[in-house]
Structures are given as structure tokens and as C-alpha cells.
């Protein structure tokens, strides 16, 4: 957030960090600064089946959504699928994991499943020495 010259990167009151594509100028400072390699820079939305094929309806939809949300020539990151979270859904990777290895919830609530798991399963953050206090925790192996 600090390195972002345009304040495109913002932290919401619930802690989720987002990138405002309209403000992002694509300077990539954040990608350099991020100790987790979590920033991706998307130059141009590309199709899956090659340029010689017309875009499928799914790709059309995906492209539209992508550009609405992230734009092109901007920096992107995981924002916990904020549009799903706002609808009361979990981020897409949670139902996507067949093994139930991922959890999502409210860290501020000490009674929530995630808070509880971090306590009981020795949750830890990556690279705490950077003092970023990331909201992604890993549970220790059992």
C-alpha cells in the first residue's frame, strides 16, 4: 500500500486489500515490493484457444468480468473474491478444494472457525519479519 503512488491499492475496513483498476497506472512498484510474490501484472487479457478462434461465450463473459474488475495493464492480486464475499459466499477456492484444506472467515471474531483453527492448529503467517501482518495463515502439519 505504501509504495502505491496512486492509492489504487486500498485496505477495506474488513481487512481485504483491493486494487482499484481505474487508479492503477501499472507501475509495478507493488509487485516489486510484495514479499510474497502475490502481485500479478496483466498486460492484456488473452484467450485460451488461440487468436485464430472466436472467443467462446465463457471467454467473452470472463473477459468482460476481468476487465470490469481488474482492467488491463494493471496489477492484480487475490482479493478473497470480494464480489462473492459481499454476496455472502466464500471465496471460490474454498468450495474448490476437494480436501477441505482451506478456510475463510472473520479473524476479528475470536470465536470464528478460522480464529479457532489458528489457535488449535498452530497457525502461522509467512515472512512475519516484514511486519505486513498478512491475513493468510497456514496451519502447522499434524
Amino acid at each position, binding site marked *: 500500500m505504501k509504495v502505491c503512488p496512486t492509492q489504487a491499492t486500498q485496505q477495506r475496513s474488513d481487512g481485504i486489500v483491493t486494487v482499484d483498476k481505474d487508479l492503477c497506472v501499472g507501475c509495478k512498484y507493488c509487485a516489486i515490493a510484495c514479499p510474497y510474490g502475490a502481485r500479478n501484472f496483466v498486460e492484456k487479457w488473452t484467450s485460451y484457444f488461440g487468436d485464430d478462434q472466436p472467443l*467462446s461465450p465463457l471467454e467473452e463473459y470472463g473477459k468482460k468480468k476481468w476487465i470490469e474488475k481488474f482492467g488491463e495493464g494493471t496489477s492484480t492480486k487475490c482479493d478473497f473474491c470480494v464480489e462473492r464475499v459481499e454476496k455472502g459466499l466464500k471465496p471460490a477456492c474454498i468450495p474448490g478444494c476437494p480436501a477441505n484444506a482451506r478456510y475463510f472467515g472473520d479473524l476479528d471474531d475470536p470465536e470464528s472457525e478460522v480464529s479457532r483453527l489458528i489457535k488449535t492448529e498452530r497457525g502461522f503467517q509467512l515472512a512475519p519479519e516484514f511486519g505486513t501482518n498478512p491475513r493468510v495463515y497456514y496451519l502447522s502439519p499434524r
Partner: protein
Amino acid sequence: MALEKGQSVVKEDVWIGTSCGQCYCQCGVRAHRVDGVVIRVEGNPKAAAGQGRICPKGVAGPMLLYDPYRVNYPLKRGNPKKGIGVDPQWQRISWEEAMDTIVEKLRETYKKDPRACLFQATTTQTSEIRFAVTGFMKAFGFTNYWVSGGGVHCGNGAHFMNGIMHAAWSIVPDFQHCNYVLNFGCSKGHGAGHVAVENAFQAADARARGCRTVVFDPFLSAQAAKGHEWVPIRVGTDGAAALAMINVILNELGIYDAEYIKLKTNGSYLIKPDGFYKRDPKTNKPMIWDRVEGKAKTFDDPSIVDYELLESVNVDGETCTPAFRLLKDHVKSYPPEKAEKITGVPASTLRRIAKEFAEEARIGSKIVIDGKEIPYRPVAAIFFRGAQGHVNSGWTCLSIDLLNHIVGAADTVGSSLGLGPPNSHGYPDTGKPNTVMYADDDGLMVAKGWVYDHKAYPLHEPKAPTRLDLHDMFPTSIYNCFTICSPDNEKLWQQFKIPYRPEILINFGSNSVMTNSNAEAITENYLKKFKFVFSFDIYLTEFTDAVADIVLPDCCFLERYTPAVTFPSIFSHPQGLGNWGWQIRQPVIEPMYERRDFNEIMLELAKRLGIADKYYEALNAAVPTRYGGPLNEENKLKPGEDYTWQEICDRLIRDRFGPDKGLEYAKKDGVITWPKKVDEIYWKWFLNVRVPIYFEFFPVGREKVKKIAEQFGAGDMLDWSRLKALPDWYPCPTHMYDGTEYDLYPFYWRAVMHTNSLTMQNPWLDEIAQQDPYAYTIQIHTETAKKKGLQDLDWVWLENPEGHRVKGQVRLTEGIEPQHLAIAACAGHWTPFQPIAKGKGVFFNDLVEADLAHTDPHPVHAVRGS
């Protein structure tokens, strides 16, 4: 925030419950459709299969739906020449022309000899093939059939043995209660195998609970990496390791579950010196020895006080020995030191693991679940691909499973469980599907729900062959690809007086040029012999390019109806505590372009050929075994009617769930659920059935098949001695190679992000596979590579002694037994019509020989022999 800006107005936003069809697991899913576009597939929380979770292949489903390389219109071959590498010169034709041509060809063959057809089907769409394939074959009058070419992707030995021992297609640990898993080279619980998703999270929970997993595998596979112990083993030798461990448990440790062996197996049955049961002259029932009364009695005599398991006795002047004693003595020929030489696993390791397994079985213990006290045996030995994919697959799978049975760890709490379970009491309102197993006259278990009419047990009665693969004469096989792919097939057909020759091949989604064995061999020796080939496909494949005359644009799983995908439960229904779920498949979008559903087309063909009544009759007849009991009279398909496919689906569902619960009802959630009962799940001690630990019926079958073969002057075509009553390990041809030129054992493993040869064209799945260092490469041990002067990502040719070669890039790893090469997936596509799949990965199957020398007589099965 940016999100609110410029968002478009959504007119339609629906979720539709259906079933995934990206692999045979058939997980329950919900498809999200927005303004007519299917934008996402997620797990359906209401479904028993997956309970809301799916795997990446399922998530990638919409990419299959919208792939621009899909077949969207009927096509005909412009080039009369057939074969690999031939340009088929596809030409678009109308449905009318396609159907007219097909009907005309079918009519000609129908008149000449209907037996001359073959149905070939994919294993990915298993629920679909139970209708159109079954119905059409019977109505038209032919029996030639295989799935996916019946090659190394097929579980001939595993399913057969699981059917006999567990009444199910596959076995897994009771992850919910198991404490110790012996995993022989299979990815169950680690992303693949039947019931993949449910097992993945059950296995993850089991690990968190403290369940220990020991993995025998030449490769540090996903399951080995996640396991507590990896035991590198020489490929194709798992059976020898298992038999040595049985020996340790029975003869060194003296541990076994005597009560289980007495009451739940044929271990007490008396065996005569000739190897067959001592039968009661009056009832013909097998006899046991009551050790308290000192008397021979029939096995089910209510007066039995206690069964003799160990001592030979004299009955009517013959020395008879309890079957258990014969097994116990038989495995003495597998001392761990001998097994070490075969398997490469140290004898001390085999001893230690055997002891851990036997002790953790906690013989004698019970547990209370739902108020019922049930034997608790929290260990399981499981297997699949690794045990299955070699010569002697049947005995190998069985040897591993016998580890379970000697300690009573089968289909009870904590133990190895058949999928489903196989034992369903039915929906509360109707009592259907009812698939409660029963005992035959010998007291042995017969499955009630099965995917084919012929069950694993009792063995089918050998007959003079009428099928091209001579299947009818072999008592222990599902289909035999060797007879078909072998260069000698014409000779065999003449010898066995097969009165017809291949005429029409109907293909439903299989790519047998790639999925069976060496591509050139199967194409030249067999597929090209068919005069007319029509094929339902979603992509053009190496098969269509080589031999198809007409390709029909099939619907994918998101565009079609299927009335029952999770039943029979033995195939893809999750085992263990939880709900039953009868899932359906329904279109989440109207089929695009000119795609049409396979089941609708086959029904239409039956109608046009004038055999619809027979088709209906065949479907009525197929229901009892596959879906748990016959249809009520009013729901049976009646002759003379003109049913649509949806009406047929509706009748079956209504019949199972009640008059108000037909297709429309099932469509609401895509699944109908009801609670499982604990005695359905852990059925072992609730049903009066036994399983064999002595396979007396194999020699019975052997004598019959031998006699038939001799009648046709082919008495020596196979080594019949393997059809015997007790398991043994036999080397693969590869193990017997004694030259020095071919110095490594290549083997195939399942990459979890891919299904058979289907999914490599999916850009999302291809992307994951490319990020996996192993999915598309040949894994070689770092030391082996060094000796050969190879570096990471070098291109190499692999060649087998028969001169077949494949090309690939090597990946150096310490995670492989140094004598081996590991190759994932059914990869290496070359058709220009799948540009994403093309050139990715290694075509392992090209190294597989399909001929008599590489054929396992028990069950008859072609194997990789390179």
C-alpha cells in the same frame, strides 16, 4: 470501489444441480448460469458424492462445454484410406444424411449377421452407457463390447476381485474410523480413483485424526508423499509383498480373526485331496468339521458348535483339510527373504509392517455406532492402478485384499469397505433401490447391484465362444483385449469357428487408438477390420481420425439427461457414514450447434430400425441388477409406445422414489437424498453371507474353459494352471527379460488433473499439468540419469524389446526407485483437432504389447509388458 463501477445488468442468474462428468466419479455439482452462459461449476452441498466439493477437472467443465474445437456438426470421412497419420478429410454433413447412412449400414448388417457389431464406450460416461449400450446391443443382437479399449486403464482384475470379496467395484479404507492404511500404489484418497473427491477430504480428515498410511509404490507419488512411510517397491511385485506379509501374520505371528474366518469366509470348508470342496452327498452343500462334536456337517447346519480351521480330518475315508489351513500352509512359500528378492523391499520392513497392520487390527474389539455394537477393525489394505496394471492383476489384487480378510477387516467399522456401500435397503417410501447381497447355495456372497448382467460371482458359465474376443469361454474376465488386438486374431477366429467377421463398430467417446496398447497394433490388427465405424464424440480424436467413417456431435455432461449416475452404488457412490444420494444429470444449457445426446440418438436408431420394442424390453431387463430391483408393472416400458429419452428417465426415477417424484422432482436439486443406516454401511455382521479365502470355483472354471479350448484344438493357448484355488505371484514378461540392453522398468501412473485421454485439450487443466513437474515428463532417478549422462529436461526415446518407441522429456528426481521410469496419464496426443492436447506428455501406452505373450489368463487381460 472499482467493483461497483460499470457493472452490467444481469437478467438471468441461476444455479442448476446436476452431476459432473469429467471423470467417472460423478460428483454432485451446481452449474451457475448467467444470461445464458455457464460461467462456473461448483460442488453441490446437497449431493452425497462430494458434499459440495469438486476437483479441478469439475471446475474446468465449462471450458469443455465451450471449447471451439468441439465437434458441433455431423462429419463424414472424405478419405477412404484409414490408419494412423492418414488425413481423414472431414466433411460436414447434415444429421439426416448421417442418420440415413448409419441406418442403411446397420440394416445390411442386421440382415447378414447382427453379431458382427461391436460397441466401444468410454469409462468417463459410465452412467450413460448403462442405457443406450445395453439397450441397443440386446435389441440388435450382438455381444461384442469393451470400454475404452479394455486396456491398461481398465480395472479388469481389481473390479472382478472386489466384486467377489466386497460386492463392489472398488474398495477404500473406512477413512472415518481407520487407523492404519496399507496403500499399494493407488491414489484413492489422494485425488483419483472412484469417489475421488469424497475420499480426498475423508483421507485428509483421517490424516488429521492420526490415521497412519504406508504406501508401497515405485514412485514417490502424491499419496506416498502425504503418507507416513514410503516403501519403494519393484513394479508389478505387490502381490509377492502381500503374500509374504500374510505369511508373517499367519505363520510367524499366529494372528488371525478366527471368528471372522469361521463365520464370514469359507475358511472352515473341508477341501478334498483333489482340491475341491467335500460336499454333502444329499444336499451337495460344502461341509465343515464340527470340532466339538467331531463330526462333518454342512456349512450352514444350525447345530454346529465350533468350526475346525486347522486340522485335517477323515471324512468317508478321505483326508479333508479346512481351507484356511491350506491358505496358511500355502503362503509359507513366501518367506519375507524370498519376497525381498522379488520386490526389493527388505524382509525386515515386510515383517515390521505386517506386525503393525495385524496388531492395529485389534481383533476381537467392538465399537458402538447408532446404538449398534459392531466389530471394529481399523486397518485396511487397498490397491488399484499399481496392482491392476500388470500380468497377474487378479491374484495381485486378491493377495492384497486377503490381508484384510485374515484379520477380519472387511466391510465393518474402520476396515476396508466396498464402495457405496453395495448394500442399500432403499428409499424409505419405496424400498428401492434394494441391493441387499445374498448367499448362493455354497454360502458365498452374490452382489445384487452390479453394472453388468454378469456379476463377478458366481463366475459366468464358460461357453463355446461367439464373441470376437472369445470372452464367452473365459469364466473370469470382463473383456479380453488380447484376442482382438493380437496379430493372430484371424487365426483365433478361424480356430474357434467364429462365424462372422467385424462389420460395424459403434463408438461412444472412447479413444481406443490411445487407450488400449500400441496404437499401430490395435489400429492395424483390429480397428481397421471394421467395414463401417460411427462414433459419438465431443472432440475429434486419434481414433476418429484413424478409422471413423461418421462422427456425430455428442452432448457433453452439461448438456444431457441421465436418470441415475450414482447407482448402482458399487461404482461411484461414497462409502461410510453419511447420506445416500441418487443423482441425475440434466442439461444446464440447451445443446449448442447441432450437438445431440447419445442416448437420444441410439433410441432414435432403434426406432428407425424397427427394434424399439426389443430396446424397451432390454432396458426393463437391465434395471433390476443396475438400479436395485425390477420396475413396477405400470412403469415398465411398453411395446408399441414411442417414448422420448426424458420419458424413460422419468419412469425410472418415479419407479424408485414414488409417483410424485419423477424427473421434474429430481431436477430441483439434481439429487434425491436420504440417510444411510449403519447396518447398510457396515454390513458384514448384519448379512448372512461369506466370502472365499479359498477359490474353489476357479479350478472348476478352469476345467470348463480348458475343455472348450481343447475342443477347438487350442488347449495350450494359455497357461491354465493359474486358474487355481489359492493366490500366487507370477512375474511379468518384463521381469523375465534377461538381456542387458533394456535396463529400466517404465510404468504408468494417474495424474489427478487428467481423466484418461479426455482432458488434455482443456486449457485450464493443461495449465495445471504444465505447472506440475511430473505430469508431462518421464521421471528418472537422479543417479540413473547421471549414469546415462542425462540432464533434467533432456529429450529421450524409450524403447521396449519389441522395438516400440516413445519420446519424452526426463525429469530427474530422488523420489523414484532407481530401476524405474514413471510416466503419467494417457498423454501424447497427435490429432491436429486437439491443438491444446497435441504434443503434451508421453504416450506410455504405445509401449504396451497386446498379444498372447503379454496376456494374463486370470483374468484374461492384456498388460503392459515393457
